[in-house]
């Protein structure tokens, strides 16, 4: 019988109410252990309280809270009620308050947010959203301040709430159970709608792919507004009864050793990481901080959510093999919010395979194995998980054979139900039941290799950024010619991720003014919480357009890398010089 998330969680809890569901960690504090029974009891209390404030089944509740023990019951409480949680990032101090509110307002309009569940600190900023005529937001609530049932609003009993939720029309396996916001920082957020059925079916199939067992334990610092954090490292553990050790993303980024400490002390077996984290931990953890740590419990360290680099795996192993990290733990998954999470996964117990292929042949769209100097090491993402199919397509939408590079199209049982309130974008993204990923790759001996992107998305440290957002922010800087900015990602081998580069056209020639303009552009991007690593100023009309008439990011990027910008600047200086 098809289940809902809540029914599954209850079934899991009933097997052993006292077993750990979540271990909440904070640096310097003892671990807080929440049992399955405790989590569900607290969730029911929260659900009753939410109902008292008018939250009904099917309502979309944005959760904007920091790492804290109350989060888990809050999320589960929203689900218990049959409402739909959407976890959003708590605004980073860099993000300009206006940009945050504008982003949230846009999201409320497109996604149809009904309630914002957050912390008091954001109250003043969010309040205008509720009063706006066009806003769908009915109330901003501070559920982490609600204490015990004594302060319950007018709700008869928890049981009544549960019955209400169960009997509500929307309740059922095909109803939405989560809204997942994929890419974009401010303007172009896409909300992926997932049903109970999609999430549970996915979790089951993905658990198979990683040979999940009762001996497993997940450790994660991943933010829960990201699909990898939310599905792999939160829904998977909850729905399978696998204990989850959850760290604070903000603490981990300041002290990356925390993940290894947690792994060792909790004897965890599974973790998912974006590629940059392998470099980050290998480079930024002091030897004496890891002395004596035993990481041998780690069964799979799964690299996912940004392009996987062979060098990052090697670097991590060189650094931590002596602590018990096995090469066989080096795993890879290919995943996206639109397919709930995983599309492919490498085999458990086997190191992800590497192929050395000719760069020149790859540029032609062909895979030719080559041991020579001009080769690229491509890391396998493994085979499609059960009920998932990957096809490599050419520009005309025709399937390509193995060994040819094309766009990856995916059909999955756990395919999303579309972007919320956005039938046009949904229609563009889907074709004959396949999701057009925008990623470029190939299949080799049934394994999928992802080598690049057709779309202009920038991925920095696992976080998806839309170039449009960055360009809009930079174009508003005085001194930048109207509409003449492009943003794109540049490969950063040292950090194992991409860095953001902006090219802006400007009339400015004076070096001091140019330096000031570059700084102003960096600051404009800072206000949307994006770090621009490189700003290049170009003379007017340097940027070229693509056939669609828009400035071409890929072409201008290629011209920058080919050194054409420097040449154009030299010519401009030449013209300025008196004869």
């Amino acid at each position, binding site marked *: 019988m098809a289940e809902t998330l809540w029914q599954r969680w209850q079934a899991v809890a009933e097997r052993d109410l006292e077993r750990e569901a979540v271990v909440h960690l904070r640096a310097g504090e003892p671990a807080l252990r929440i049992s399955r029974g405790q989590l569900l009891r607290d969730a029911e209390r929260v659900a009753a309280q939410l109902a008292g404030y008018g939250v009904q089944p099917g309502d979309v509740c944005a959760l904007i809270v920091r790492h804290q023990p109350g989060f888990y019951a809050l999320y589960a409480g929203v689900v218990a009620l049959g409402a739909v949680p959407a976890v959003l990032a708590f605004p980073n101090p860099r993000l300009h308050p206006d940009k945050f509110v504008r982003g949230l307002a846009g999201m409320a309009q497109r996604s149809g947010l009904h309630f914002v569940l957050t912390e008091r600190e954001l109250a003043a900023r969010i309040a205008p959203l509720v009063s706006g005529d066009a806003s769908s937001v009915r109330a901003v609530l501070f559920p982490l301040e609600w204490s015990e049932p004594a302060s319950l609003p007018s709700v008869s009993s928890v049981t009544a709430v549960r019955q209400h939720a169960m009997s509500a029309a929307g309740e059922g396996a095909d109803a939405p159970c989560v809204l997942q916001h994929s890419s974009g920082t401010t303007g172009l957020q896409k909300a992926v709608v997932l049903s109970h059925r999609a999430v549970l079916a996915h979790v089951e199939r993905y658990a198979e792919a990683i040979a999940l067992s009762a001996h497993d334990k997940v450790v994660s610092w991943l933010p829960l507004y990201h699909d990898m954090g939310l599905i792999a490292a939160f829904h998977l553990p909850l729905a399978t009864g696998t204990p989850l050790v959850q760290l604070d993303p903000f603490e981990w980024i300041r002290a*990356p050793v925390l993940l290894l400490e947690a792994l060792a002390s909790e004897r965890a077996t599974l973790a998912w990481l974006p590629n940059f984290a392998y470099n980050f931990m290998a480079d930024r953890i002091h030897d004496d901080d890891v002395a004596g740590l035993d990481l041998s419990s780690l069964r799979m360290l799964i690299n996912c959510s940004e392009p996987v680099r062979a060098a990052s795996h090697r670097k991590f192993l060189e650094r931590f093999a002596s602590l018990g990290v096995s090469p066989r733990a080096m795993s890879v998954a290919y995943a996206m919010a639109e397919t709930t999470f995983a599309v492919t996964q490498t085999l458990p117990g086997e190191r992800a395979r590497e192929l050395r292929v000719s760069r020149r042949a790859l540029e032609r769209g062909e895979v030719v194995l080559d041991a020579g100097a001009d080769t690229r090491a491509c890391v396998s993402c493994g085979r499609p998980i059960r009920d998932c199919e990957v096809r490599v397509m050419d520009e005309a939408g025709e399937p390509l054979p193995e060994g040819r590079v094309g766009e990856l199209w995916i059909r999955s049982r756990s395919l999303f139900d579309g972007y919320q309130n956005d039938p046009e974008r949904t229609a563009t993204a889907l074709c004959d039941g396949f999701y057009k990923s925008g990623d470029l790759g190939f299949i080799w001996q049934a394994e999928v290799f992802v080598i690049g992107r057709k779309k202009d998305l920038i991925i920095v440290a696992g976080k998806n950024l839309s170039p449009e957002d960055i360009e809009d922010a930079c174009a508003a800087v005085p001194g930048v010619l109207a509409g003449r900015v492009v943003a794109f990602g540049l490969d950063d081998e040292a950090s194992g991720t991409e860095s953001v580069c902006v090219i802006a056209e400007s009339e400015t020639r004076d070096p001091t003014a140019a330096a000031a303009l570059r700084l102003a552009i960096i600051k404009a991007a800072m206000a949307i919480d994006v770090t621009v690593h490189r700003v290049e100023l170009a003379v007017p009309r340097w940027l070229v357009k693509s056939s669609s008439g828009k400035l071409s990011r890929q072409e201008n990027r290629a011209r920058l890398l080919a050194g054409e910008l420097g040449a154009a600047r030299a010519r401009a200086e030449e013209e300025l010089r008196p004869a």
Partner: protein
Amino acid sequence: MISERLKSVILRELRLADVSIEASTLASEVPGWDSLKHVALLAAVEREFGVRFKTLEVMRLQNVGELDALVRKKLAAAQV
């Protein structure tokens, strides 16, 4: 007032020409000083002054002034 030496190592690590950095300055106010860069920057400060920060000390830092005070404390302790 933070030390000139601390300011210069911050500017050098972030490749900034000159940006105002005071005791009350927050990392989030300095161009390039994002969460990804934070650990590398602290490592550069450690190298510059020949000191080592502990995880919890790093967690507690609220602004540049506190970083400056931590460096001074470490240096004073090393002299004893």
